[in-house]
């Protein structure tokens, strides 16, 4: 063997043992530095799933490998990072993203490059409807679905005058629009007395709370989260806004946002969320025990999303029997699987999973916020009729 041949051999050994042929790669990108509170538990959930899958023999006889990248929180960088995952890292599947603009940009790139993209976090309805495409799938219940889950309780109250407060960007705007539309349909005499749009992360809580008090609403619908929610809750508690006015707040029951409220937690709010220590179904118990054993910490909403997303990829590739994108796309359409929240179906119609969420009320227990009176809302029951979805997808 000539010297040259040895070098070539050594190099190819170096590349290929490490490399692409031996593992199935999930290229994951997310805004780890912009939304760390949600995404650190999310990453732990993904890693747990990877370890479990590989311990039980991997997928199609190969190990599953996770390559994560920070997408910088903006679409421009995210698209570059996604290109890197596809062409340099040889990712078989793209996964991740948080904010809706980043998710939509990556989804569009996936359609252009014909790569499967599993949008794990973004909530925007457009992801699978107006901007839906063959290569994009979304795991979480969307803004529309979560809003719809709160509607039955909102209708039961028979309140006439509603006030709305929301963070002024896609998520808050579409939550508000869906809420108004759905409530109006169920209760035609409803009246929306004020709408407060706050810049994301910069709510002027005192002034907003006072404006809501002045509007004299019978009930309030809010889609605030994170720092905005905490400011709103504290000001509202101090100024007595919530004393006699019921509040509905998307996402406020997720541990990421609820746990920071501690003894400020407002009693009786209707929320969507994740009562992690009270769900005792076998599949959730199994997940929670494994998570707590692995990370010495309790699972958050993000943990469930990361964990289920990785399992989705594994199941789809198993079903397809190949990593070929077109085959995996076909396998994922209509795929049925279990998650810690119970069984889900990946709808062939719009590539939305039927994963649900928990709806319940907030309460304080020993200085901590918890969810009580909760029920599980199956995502399949909170989606618009097929024809409406078809019209939105322009199919």
């Amino acid at each position, binding site marked *: 063997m000539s010297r040259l041949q040895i070098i070539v051999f050594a190099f190819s050994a170096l590349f290929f043992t490490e490399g692409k042929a031996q593992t199935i790669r999930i290229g994951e990108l997310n805004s780890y*530095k*912009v939304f*760390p*509170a949600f*995404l*650190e538990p999310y990453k732990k959930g993904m890693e747990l799933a990877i370890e479990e899958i590989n311990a039980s023999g991997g997928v199609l006889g190969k190990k599953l490998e996770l390559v994560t990248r*920070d997408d*910088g929180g*903006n*679409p*421009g*960088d995210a*698209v*570059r990072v996604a*290109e*890197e995952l596809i*062409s*340099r890292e040889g990712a078989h599947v793209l996964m991740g993203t948080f904010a*809706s*603009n980043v998710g*939509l*940009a990556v*989804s*569009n*790139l996936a359609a*252009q490059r014909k790569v499967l993209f599993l949008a794990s976090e973004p909530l*925007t309805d457009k992801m699978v409807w107006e*901007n839906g495409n063959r290569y994009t799938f979304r795991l979480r219940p969307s803004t529309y679905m979560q809003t719809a889950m709160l509607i039955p309780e909102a209708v039961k109250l028979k309140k006439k005058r509603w006030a709305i407060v929301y963070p*002024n*960007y*896609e998520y808050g*705007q579409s939550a508000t629009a869906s809420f108004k539309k759905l409530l109006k349909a169920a209760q035609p005499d409803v009246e929306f007395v004020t*709408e*407060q*749009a*706050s*810049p994301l*992360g*910069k709510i*002027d*809580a*005192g*002034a*907003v709370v*006072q*404006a809501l008090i*002045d509007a004299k609403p019978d009930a309030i619908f809010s889609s605030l989260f*994170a*720092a905005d929610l*905490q*400011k709103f809750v*504290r*000001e509202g508690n*101090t*100024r*007595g806004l919530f004393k006699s006015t019921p509040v509905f707040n998307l996402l406020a029951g997720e541990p*990421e946002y609820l746990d*920071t*409220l*501690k003894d400020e937690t407002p009693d009786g709010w209707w929320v969507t969320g994740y009562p992690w220590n009270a769900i005792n179904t076998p599949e959730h118990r199994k997940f929670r025990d494994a998570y707590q054993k692995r990370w010495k910490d309790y699972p958050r909403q993000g943990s469930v999303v990361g964990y289920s997303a990785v399992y989705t990829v594994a199941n789809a590739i198993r079903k397809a029997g190949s990593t070929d994108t077109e085959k995996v796309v076909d396998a994922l359409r209509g795929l049925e699987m279990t998650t810690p929240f119970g069984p889900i179906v990946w709808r062939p119609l719009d590539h939305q999973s039927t994963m649900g969420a928990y709806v319940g009320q907030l309460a304080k227990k020993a200085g901590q916020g918890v969810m009580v009176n909760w029920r599980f809302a199956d995502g399949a029951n909170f989606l618009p009729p097929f024809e409406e979805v078809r019209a939105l997808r322009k199919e």
Partner: protein
Amino acid sequence: MLLSSVLIQFLNGLAGASSLFLVAAGLSLIFGVTRIVNFAHGSLYMLGMYLAVWLAERIGFWAAVPLAAITVGAIGALAEISLLRRIYKAPELLQLLATFALLLLVKDFALWAWGPEDLLGPRAPGFAGAVEIAGNAFPQYDLLLILLGPLVLVLLQLLLSRTRWGILVRAATEDREMAGALGVNQRWLFTGVFALGALLAGLGGALQIPREPANLNVDLSVISDAFVVVVIGGLGSIPGAFLAALLIAEAKAFCIGLGYSQATLVIEFVIMAAVLVARPWGLLGRMPVPARPGAAEPPLAPPSRRLRWTLAIVACGLALLPLGSGGYTLVLLTDLLIFALFAASLHFIMGPGGMYSFGHAAYFGLGAYAAGILLLREKFPMELALALAPFAAGLAALAFGWFCVRLSGVYSAMLTLAFAQIAWSAVFQWDALTGGSNGLVGVWPAPWLSSKPAYYFLTLLICASGIFLLWRAIYSPFGLALRATRDSPLRAEASGIDVRATQWAAFAIAGLAAGVAGALYAFSKGSISPEALGIQRSVDGLVMVMLGGIQTLSGPVWGAALFAWLQDAAARNIDYWRAATGFVILALALVLPNGIGSLLQAKK
């Protein structure tokens, strides 16, 4: 609105004004004396918040507040002595680069030290409840804040007017060189002022914790508010800062109270633009002492033989690259080329023009949006959209520039920022045209340009010609006239140069070039969203120019390449990539204060 609601919203405004004033006062002091554009001021505020929450659990709220403020003051002093003091002699605005690096470091430090979750602090003992005012519950703590703001104002005024130290500070604010000539030890004066400013920022943060959780996004959101307040009030004027804080906080409270809550996105920038157009030095500011002759920059040397060769080799290398490498390298290089053109366009007005722009991303973003809108809404062919889009940016630059060239120095820079923010909010709110916060998706190049090498060649061709034309312009009669207006407006005027028209034209050219970069960017990504004209992108541009060296010809191009590559490489390999980027920038600022471009300058 009921009368009682008007009263309550007025009080809400007062409480908000006090919070704003506390951060802005420190920034104003620091700028007034040291002329440092302190980007890390918001980070000091954030540190104050985190420290106060952390200390309050251990020693109680009321002990935690002063202790947190003093600690942040000490950190400020340390940063000034160990870092900023070394670069006062360097080109103006290099401090901006150093404080930007500090911002990155502090952000990752806070994440590392206190974790990712927001920390909601305790209520202030003794001020936890509400009092009844006109039938409404009003937080006691807000009443306390309403008193604290003016109290700090009075104390600062006494300090500045009644103590010897204060008199020296005012002398240095008024005329730094004269104060130095009269034997005032500037070193310790600067350290003292910086420490006091940092302490005020820390105090502002600590006092905020009963109203707002300590979180990692607060640094950037506070810094832009604080800058706006300082500029509206007049740089270096403490009462001006108070007045401006009052104006902004009341405007916000009443926007919300009257049902125009969407306006809060941009109201402070609209006010800033209006104030600056009417009063070029802010409400209570005074015309700065004009720069003395002799402060002129050395003439920009024509590119040396070495530089010409380097550029020729780099260009050839870039043109041949797709032969040997495909895939991601081309994607990354496409980004680098676009940012290089963006940085070169900013350098065109900052270097030879001496006009600072803190809002250059506006033209980048408008170019990108124009491309997207022409393609998707007007159904123009991609080639035509790409060709026409930059003119939208150029027109915007023409319109905004008319106002900006009538101001000078940092005021002009802040007016560019105000216009950029107004453009940003228009794009953000105008759903029907721009797609709102989601932006536009599906902005892809025509089929013959859609392969990576093809689009790379297109970008290389356009960016290289754009940069070449900008550089040619610097050595043309127009460029020489522009440099004259920078070095001595009076002499330039006397020798028959229309100073404002020259600057205005330069502004429009720079906007046009940034628009070209933006349009290329849109098609390379397939989508465009409001971040493209956000503050972050403007700051990135400044960092690229400063890293490369503002008074070098090719520096900004190298700066852009280095910065974009650094972010890419660091984000891929290091968890704390922001801190890593910060370290590298800091090191470069200290070792190469004139920028990496100075390495290629002709040796004298």
